[in-house]
């Protein structure tokens, strides 16, 4: 019996490693488009690589580069990127129970906290597999993402006009695909409509980069209002 359990664990570990590699390769393709888009927006090759190695958060990097591309102030880009990266803090809240690390190990773990590594660890049942899924997915994505960024950036330099390849549609298309699995409830759809609507309404009247920040402020307001209503209802039910 012990041998069978052992066999079972090994199979589960192999499955986790295979999934981690698959996720890494898939995000690598996304990295190609990031590299190309970053160069198109006016960032240098070195700046593009620094973003992928040190910022290391897909949608936040796209957000930052998107503001630069639209001609926004660089620090409006920092704010947009930080807001988009803020959900990694929330993943961290979930992961901290699992990854009880201190010092350098905690810093290394923190750097690898992204959508994919968090999602993989949440999908696993046992703590051991969840930890394995987190580390292996994080490392696989980190390697693929950085190699792909360089390739995409170098590739874009040879294009006279990357718009002709439709590269400016890559980021919004990727966001559509990333957002879809979260749109499973009425409040989620409502939030998406409010976010998109507020941002579009703000485009003609505010500088580039601000429409997305304004949308974020409105959504925090909506979320707080919603939770107050819910607390109120739960209180009544409890009473």
């Amino acid at each position: 019996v012990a041998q069978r359990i052992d066999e079972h664990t090994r199979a589960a570990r192999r499955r986790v490693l295979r999934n981690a590699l698959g996720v890494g390769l898939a995000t690598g393709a996304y990295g190609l488009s990031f590299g190309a888009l970053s160069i198109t927006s006016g960032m240098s090759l070195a700046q593009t690589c620094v973003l992928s190695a040190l910022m290391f958060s897909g949608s936040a990097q796209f957000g930052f580069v998107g503001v630069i591309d639209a001609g926004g102030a660089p620090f409006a880009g920092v704010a947009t990127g930080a807001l988009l990266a803020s959900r990694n803090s929330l993943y961290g809240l979930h992961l901290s129970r699992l990854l009880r690390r201190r010092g350098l190990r905690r810093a290394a773990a923190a750097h690898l906290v992204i959508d994919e590594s968090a999602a993989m660890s949440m999908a696993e049942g046992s703590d051991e597999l969840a930890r394995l899924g987190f580390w292996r997915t994080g490392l696989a994505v980190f390697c693929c993402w950085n190699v792909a960024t360089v390739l995409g950036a170098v590739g874009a330099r040879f294009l006279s006009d990357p718009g002709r390849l439709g590269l400016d549609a890559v980021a919004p298309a990727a966001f559509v695909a990333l957002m879809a699995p979260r749109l499973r409830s009425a409040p989620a759809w409502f939030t998406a409509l409010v976010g998109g609507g507020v941002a579009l309404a703000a485009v003609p009247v505010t500088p580039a980069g601000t429409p997305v920040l304004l949308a974020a402020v409105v959504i925090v307001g909506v979320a707080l209002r919603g939770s107050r209503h819910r607390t109120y209802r739960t209180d009544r039910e409890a009473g």
Partner: protein
Amino acid sequence: MLWLATLAAAACSFALKLAGLSVPQRILRDGRVQRIAALLPIGLLAALVATQTFAAGRHLSVDARVAGVGCAVALTWRRAPFLMVVLSAAAVTALVRR
């Protein structure tokens, strides 16, 4: 200036990740934190999709990008793989522009 912003963006991103791993568990139990955590990414992504599809500087415009992103929405609806969604969006946008 762009270098400074690049390094600041990287520093913010790392600080946010580390802060999440270092915060006491009880904060997560707050209902408001949970609700903001669930809804903010959705709203932000929707705002990004909207502006990157329709904004041209400080104007709104309907151009080739709309066809590409429309294609991405349709493929996502049909549960196509991530790669196919992204590549088709670029291809459709490029084709419409020709």
